[in-house]
């Protein structure tokens, strides 16, 4: 579930507030959004994709919260890692044409 809105990275664009399908964030005038309803987070990780400054961190734990340390996440390269791996840039879709999913169908274990 969502555990971090980085105060130093956030530019108050509210992209996460708008994009969150579960309405987890509340916008705050002149400040970073707050995680107003943390237990409503469905761990879909899509807010990270929409964040232009990689200011969010969604823990992979879907049923429990954990305390995270921004400096350690930064060090481990985990801030924005999902967006980087997708190829999206500053919250905008990109990398779509680099998708290698077709390789998963080559050994015929799965048929669409």
């Amino acid at each position, binding site marked *: 579930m969502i555990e971090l809105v980085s105060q130093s990275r956030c530019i108050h664009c509210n992209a996460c507030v708008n994009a969150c399908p579960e309405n987890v964030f509340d916008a705050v005038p002149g400040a970073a959004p707050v995680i107003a309803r943390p237990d409503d987070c469905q761990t879909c990780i899509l807010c990270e*994709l929409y964040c232009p400054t990689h200011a969010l961190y969604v823990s992979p734990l879907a049923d429990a919260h954990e305390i995270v340390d921004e400096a350690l996440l930064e060090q481990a390269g985990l801030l924005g890692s999902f967006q980087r791996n997708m190829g999206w840039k500053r919250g905008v879709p990109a990398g*779509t044409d680099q998708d290698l999913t077709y390789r998963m169908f080559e050994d015929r274990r799965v048929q669409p």
Partner: protein
Amino acid sequence: MTVEHLFDQRGSVSGLTLTADVLVIGGGPAGAWAALLAAAQGAKVVLVEKGFLGTGGATAAGNTTTIHTLPGSDEREAAIQRRMAQAFGLAKQDWVERIIEDAFIHLNELADWGYPFPSTEDGVSYRGSLRGADYLRFMRRLLRKADVKVLDKSPALELLTSDGVVVGAAGTNRVSHERWTVRSGAVVVATGGCAFRSNALGTNGLTGDGYLLSAEAGAVFSGMEFTGQYGIAPAFSSVTKGIIYFWATFTDADGNVLERKGDRQAAVARHLMTGPVYAVLDQASPRVQEGMRRGQPNIFVPFDRKRIDPFTQRFPITLRYEGTVRGVGGLVIDATGATTVPGLFAAGDAASRENFVGATTGGGGPNSSWAMSTGARAGQAAAAFAAALGLRAQERRAQPAGVIGLRPAGPIDKELRVADVIAAVQQEILPLDRSYFRTGAALAASQERLNDLWREARAGFSASGDEVSDVREAASMIATARWIVASAMGRPESRGINRRLDFPNTDPAQQHRLTAGGLDKVWVEPETAMPRAMAS
């Protein structure tokens, strides 16, 4: 605040009011296609989405395979035959052929409109999968160009009807709390399925809202018993990417390898009922591994963040309930997407996929094809329905059709809270010994408890301490659970994903569809040549 405040005694309305030819409820792929194709017919279209068109629903978070086969090719024939063979006798060949052809056309349209499909190393454009977030963002852009008005964070609460015909819907905005009303010539329900907030990837907004509001207008369901559908995820995680487990070895706590004959999930389900189960993706070649990593980055979020190498290290897994999202059941539609209620159309997971997938999951390619085909057809048919009404459309007097949670039958029960109602429903649906493996005795006990819960909620459930949209979600889950349980009781046999421990065999005499419906009194009956609701 109840909707009576919105509709005063003369039937006039406060809050945001809009008129449209077609109102689409739900902004996943099916809703987006419906809106796009309705607009292409010249209809004025409003689309309301409870979350955000781009991230809402199972496709956005999960990605999806598709079925893209050239007409007349061996691949096309094989795809059709595979569906028919896996349907346990309940699919219809003409539906299978139509949907697979529609998917081919719509995938090619996406390419023509500029969706950046990848190419294989041979330089062939590959249209066999879509990245959900990219796909929906692309659809959002197309809708903006087509002048479709999109209202995000705007759940529908109820339909508006006039003499049994659907003439619009009313809802709320989760941020501003302002109510909205859309008067329209036709309504398309594309609200997705119901997974009962199981935390399966991207499904928590899929709470059966469209089922409830359609049933209040008299709509009918089928295939609700084919809902013993779960997805495998790392135990701590939401990421139900079942596809990766085709390369898995499953083990129990002691490291014994689980047998894998038949349904690959059945052994996992049986063992999970008594202890932990582990998986390692040790069958995947380096080339497949790279395909996963550079095709589906969401697979690796839980692994990378917990420092697990899934190809060499075993990790605990669980099964998360997927219900009608990847199961079968939903609103009965005809080939145009029309439900049994005039003016009301349905598409995607909200509609019953039984004619296409029969008694089994359509997870992946079949479901995404179904969403494109039924979405596009429902949008076109809704636009035609609205056009035929002409100027009469907005003259019809609208009555709100919503009941439970909006207009309590008795005194408001302030003790009845959303979280408790949801927890009570989940106990009857989510456990493996409720929905994966069913028995008549367990179903009967669930039915009794759910009927009690419905009566209690019908009498006094209201938005006294919770958001009204949350109240309606919880009410939708009670209703959906009751149709599921009653339908499973009505099919004393095992067929596809209705697994009855007390009736382990498939009974040739039950090779027919079951329809279901009703609110205060739930009914289930075998489909005859002319289903009851169609005949009336």
